[in-house]
């Protein structure tokens, strides 16, 4: 139960630091493979993934972190308009996206660049999207980090938080009606559960059982709103009960646990239909480059969560298994830097969209009015005052 109102002395001040629920994972029913040190001592068995899979997982997480750091600096230095950090949430999205098959559909929110990488998107195309270049898959039309690509079966989100959840469920339902084996995953945040579309999608899913995983990244905050101002329920997972949708909580900073529960939900999707997975994680970074988290949260809270940083946690697991060495790490970091620098340079050099191009793709074929507007714009730009 939340307290009714925050104590008056904290009005307008950052909230007192809330300890990570992961500190009490077992008590709170948050499933884990790894403990805080990366040792497989959680309630879930170690999925014993093959080394190549583990390497892919770790490399992707490290690359995501490197992209995030580079993008942040590009934004801060004015070379990029906007940035949406994913720092801290690498395990949640990389672990789950890896658990899906290559042809499965993914509906993204905005902190999951790793899903694109896992499907083979090039770094240059990612940075071209961040820079808003005409040549990226979405033609420079979306803000940085609103990623997607039809060629990868990845659908970009529609910016309104949560509004696309039933799009994913509808697509999954369609696949089921067609008898296809395709499975679906849709990413959204804790804040998104408050929107009506979460309710719609869950309610329809309880009845019609589309093969989809509703993947809620509970990162503690929706901009400045903490989870206990978002809902009074004790967890986001349990909301599934209201719709008879299978649900569970998982340690979102434990990539092996995330992988395991997502894989299991995927495997049962044909028979059981939808699952709601709440990945308990934390946004270590700013909400976006326009945010100022100092207004609402204390450094101590962030510091407590840094202890659960998924990257060193997985690295220690790999090291303990003899699958990773300091030399590997050094090489990986260098490689990430080099690849990113190349991609930044190439992407930044790509041309921006042409004014006339915005009239494409409104409809399959432009109406007379759109053609008229295009012609008028180009003429006015040409001769105009």
């Amino acid at each position, binding site marked *: 139960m939340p307290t009714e109102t925050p104590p008056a002395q904290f009005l307008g001040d950052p909230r007192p630091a809330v300890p990570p629920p992961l500190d009490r994972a077992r008590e709170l029913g948050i499933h884990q493979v790894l403990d805080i040190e990366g040792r497989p001592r959680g309630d879930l068995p170690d999925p014993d993934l093959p080394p190549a899979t583990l390497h892919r997982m770790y490399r992707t997480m490290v690359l995501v972190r490197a992209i995030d750091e580079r993008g942040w600096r590009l934004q801060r230095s004015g070379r990029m308009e906007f940035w949406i950090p994913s720092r801290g949430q690498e395990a949640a999205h990389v672990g789950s996206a890896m658990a899906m098959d290559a042809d499965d559909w993914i509906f993204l929110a905005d902190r999951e660049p790793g899903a694109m990488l896992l499907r083979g998107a090039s770094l240059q195309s990612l940075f071209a999207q961040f820079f808003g270049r005409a040549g990226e898959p979405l033609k420079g039309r979306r803000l940085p980090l609103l990623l997607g690509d039809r060629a990868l079966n990845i659908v970009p989100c529609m910016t309104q938080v949560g509004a696309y959840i039933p799009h994913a469920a509808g697509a999954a339902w369609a696949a089921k009606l067609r008898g296809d084996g395709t499975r679906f995953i849709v990413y959204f945040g804790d804040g998104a559960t408050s929107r009506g579309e979460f309710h719609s999608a869950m309610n329809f899913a309880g009845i019609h059982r589309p093969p989809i995983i509703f993947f809620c990244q509970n990162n503690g905050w929706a901009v400045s709103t903490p989870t206990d101002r978002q809902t009074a329920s004790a967890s986001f997972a349990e909301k599934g009960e209201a719709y008879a949708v299978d649900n569970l909580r998982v340690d979102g900073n434990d990539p092996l646990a995330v992988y395991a529960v997502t894989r299991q939900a995927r495997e049962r999707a044909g028979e059981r239909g939808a699952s709601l997975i709440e990945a308990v994680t934390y946004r270590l970074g700013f909400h976006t480059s326009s945010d100022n988290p100092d207004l609402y949260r204390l450094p101590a809270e962030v510091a407590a969560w840094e202890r659960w940083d998924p990257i060193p946690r997985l690295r220690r697991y790999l090291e303990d298994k003899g699958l990773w060495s300091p030399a590997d790490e050094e090489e990986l970091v260098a490689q990430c830097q080099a690849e990113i620098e190349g991609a930044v340079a190439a992407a930044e050099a790509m041309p921006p969209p042409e004014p006339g191009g915005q009239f494409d793709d409104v409809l399959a074929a432009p109406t007379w*009015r759109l053609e008229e507007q295009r012609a008028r714009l180009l003429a006015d730009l040409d001769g105009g005052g």
Partner: protein
Amino acid sequence: MTVLEALNAAMAHEMARDDRVVILGEDVGTAGGIFRVTQGLQQRFGPKRVIDTPLDEKGIAAHAVGMALYGLKPIAEIQFSGFIHDAFEQLMFGASKYRWATGGQYSVPMVVRAPSFGGIKGGFWHSQSPEAYYVHGGGMKIVAPSTPRDAYGLLLAAIRDPDPTLVLEPVPLYRALRDEVADDGTALPIGEACLVREGADVTVVTYGPLRHDVVAVADEMAAARGIEVEVIDLRSLMPFDVDGIVGSVRRTGRLVVVHEAPLSLGFGAELAATVQQVAFGYLHCPIERVAGHDLPYGFAGGDEYYRPNRARIGAAITRAVEFSF
């Protein structure tokens, strides 16, 4: 066929031809819809193609968007157009934006069927004309058939269209009219108006069930006063047939627009704004708009005094033909 039978036949035809077509909505299955437009379709095509949904218009629209993204061609029924507003964001800022927002990669070939317009003493929420809300943002087509033949051809066209299409069905005409309609799968092109009645003195552009009232007034004016009214039924609102309208106005020099939706920023505003520009030198009088008022459509009296009645239509035509500076 009646309008209702024509709509049913169009769906049946296309469902038989194209197994991607599915229907979803409240009470569309077992009961065949509260108006029975989908009657018999669940029996014929099964519960995976004709699906009863929870009472959630936003959810219906949003799931249809997803189905269409995956490649189905969903037809979502909104029980009355007065209940479409909950789906506004999903339709105008979801369905209608995917193609553009994904650089042309994803499309949403869905149809929304919305029983619309007044004349059934249904009060505000059962008598609405929501078209204007769906014109402004772009990315969606809109048709409003008002004969059985148009209903058949335009619903077929909507289902086949690669983009989201809103079909405003004329509730008061569902069973009121009969046409010969060949159930041969021929679609009508979206975007072509219908010249319902020729006349040299004044052009009246309308759509929806009022088309029939306008024709009645026109016939009356011809008989009683020798005024020859040209009547155009738009049928498609987005895109609309600008050439057909402008051609007519250039001949008659006078334009009256008639619709049920509220006046302010009703579709007539766009027609007037467009025509005054394209046909500026041809206009002998200001463009008149006869419309619903800027308020809700009342229960008791709405059909007579909210909806443009023949007295108001006639008065506007008279103002147009008698205009002098």
